[in-house]
């Protein structure tokens, strides 16, 4: 059992405010031999610098940068150690300092956390965060084995060499404990494939019914292929800055109010039970009747302590009292439908055991109380791992700036990626969005970051 000491739950503080001024990305593809990794990163940075209505020229921007953070999950996928040095050099940022961050699927979130720490502490004033993953040098089957080497290779990886199975184990237990209908999980996949149809960047858009998802081939029961994230190639960039630099560069920066991290054991097996860490919108009474014959422990296999820990810190840091009411938008790390529903509970959208209500109530949809993964998420749009947490924040930045249409609706942007804008295109700009949250997540919940962004004015 984890017993917190007084220092363990200290709420983080930024010494000075941190802003997001621009975002950029490539489109995401299963295979992308047309462009090498350096070119993809440059394309995402170029978009951030040139297409975000910055008040400074690309040259002035270059002369403002004083620290860089790079985000790549897996050296063995890219088959290039020190890839960050190669990208940094290619982007022309030498001899500025840089750091490369790695925390599995949460690499993007952790990279932004590292960049935010640099800005908040005064170490830096303008920091590009550049993330990518090159997952197309190997076959899908080898790719799955590579990903499964982010499980414990001594005691777990050999059991299937398949990450979907490790989530499927959680899914079976979650369904047993909570009696969530199979259809509810499938609805998450329908939603995210569906929103991906309105993103020119998306890799796996589709107009699916619940029946389509349930009839789809099973990877590891109960999870079907369409309920699993895509394996992607692509890059994403956001640019963080201090207040002075942010307002010099853009008239509508977004403030990064909080970004916090939590962890839990790499092996799901090793998660000992403990009392539930309560969020600001929960009390002891919330869980008076939580434990019953089927469920007698927390976090068990049904909950992510790492996500709860990160949400606890970030909500307290940003003054969030009720996430569904306080956020206008959410991006979750929907690696699998099951992890999405678990996350709803971990971050307090519903109490533990009731995550299904967030989907079934309609809250999670566009025009619902908290539209979630309008980007298409990892299931519909991309999981180019090192880019993922950065991609989420770029999408939220544009939503908070009221620029979603600029970056999604222009037929020329679709043409840029060799695509045609769908005839039934839907505008997914959330009107007057003020505050948004993004979850970056690794392993079977080994690392999670929770980021909170808010529209800024001065």
């Amino acid at each position, binding site marked *: 059992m984890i*017993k917190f000491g007084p220092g363990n739950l200290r709420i983080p503080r930024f010494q000075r405010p941190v802003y997001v001024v621009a975002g950029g990305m490539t489109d995401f593809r299963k295979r992308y031999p047309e462009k090498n990794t350096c070119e993809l990163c440059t394309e995402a940075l170029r978009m951030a610098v040139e297409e975000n209505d910055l008040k400074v020229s690309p040259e002035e921007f270059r002369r403002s940068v004083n620290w860089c953070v790079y985000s790549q999950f897996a050296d063995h996928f890219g088959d290039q150690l020190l890839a960050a040095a190669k990208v940094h050099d290619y982007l022309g940022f030498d001899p500025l300092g840089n750091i490369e961050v790695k925390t599995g699927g949460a690499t993007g979130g952790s990279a932004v956390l590292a960049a935010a720490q640099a800005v908040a502490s005064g170490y830096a004033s303008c920091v590009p965060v550049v993330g990518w993953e090159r997952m197309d040098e190997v076959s899908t089957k080898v790719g*799955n084995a590579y990903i499964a080497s982010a499980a414990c290779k001594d005691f*777990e990886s050999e059991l299937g060499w*398949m990450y979907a199975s490790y989530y499927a*184990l959680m899914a079976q237990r979650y369904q*047993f404990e909570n009696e969530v209908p199979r259809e509810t999980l499938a609805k998450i996949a329908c939603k995210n494939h569906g929103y991906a149809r309105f993103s020119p960047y998306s890799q796996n858009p589709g107009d699916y019914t619940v029946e389509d998802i349930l009839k789809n081939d099973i990877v590891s029961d109960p999870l079907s292929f369409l309920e699993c994230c895509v394996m992607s190639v692509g890059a994403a960039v956001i640019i963080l800055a201090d207040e002075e630099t942010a307002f010099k560069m853009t008239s509508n920066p977004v403030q990064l109010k909080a970004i916090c991290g939590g962890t839990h054991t790499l*092996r799901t097996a090793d998660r*000992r039970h403990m009392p539930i860490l309560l969020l600001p919108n929960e009390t002891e009474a919330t869980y008076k009747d939580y434990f019953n014959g089927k469920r007698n422990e927390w976090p068990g296999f049904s909950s992510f302590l790492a996500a709860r820990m990160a949400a606890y810190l970030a909500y307290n840091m940003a003054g969030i009292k009720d996430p569904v009411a306080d956020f206008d938008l959410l991006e979750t790390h929907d690696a699998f439908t099951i992890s999405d529903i678990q996350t709803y509970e971990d971050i307090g959208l519903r109490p533990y055991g009731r995550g299904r209500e967030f989907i079934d109530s309609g809250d999670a949809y566009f025009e619902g109380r908290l539209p979630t993964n309008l980007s298409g998420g990892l299931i519909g749009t991309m999981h180019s791992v090192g880019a993922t947490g950065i991609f989420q924040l770029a999408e939220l930045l544009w939503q908070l700036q009221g620029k979603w249409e600029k970056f999604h609706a222009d037929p020329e942007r679709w043409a840029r990626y060799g695509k045609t804008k769908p005839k039934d295109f839907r505008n997914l700009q959330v009107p007057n969005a003020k505050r948004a949250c993004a979850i970056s997540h690794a392993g079977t919940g080994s690392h999670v970051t929770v980021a909170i962004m808010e529209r800024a004015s001065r």
Partner: protein
Amino acid sequence: MTVELNGTTAEIVSDEPLVIKNLKNWHHTHSYGGWGRFFKGLREGKLLATRCVNPVCREKRLWLPPRCDCPDCWSRMEWTPAPTIGEIFTHSTVQYPGALFRADPPCPLISVSIDGVCTKLMSYLKDGTPRIGMPVRAVFNTKKPTNTILDLAWVPR
């Protein structure tokens, strides 16, 4: 001085864009270190766990997978046989495993809860159809061991 190439060539996958095959034909030597005792135990039909011996440490239960050092107090642990019966805590049958998997799918993966053990060991069900709560007992691949975690499996009891 003249440098001659050794004649090997990178196979071309596509010419536009130019894509080549980089071959990797070597192995890693991996040491289990202190955990070797667990894997050698499987060869001998034993399920070995560890327990913290620090009298002031709060965690008195067994660890399986074993840890040589206690995560709660960093004391060294002692080795002890674990019960070889348990219950299926959860399961999933993998249909499409990754490239390195040594068994033919479908393969029912299971997590096993064992009395007195603070963890839920991941393994697989060698016979039968898994269900949550199913009583199971450990079986060991002692005849032709893989020297991996696959040498431990479970069957219904």
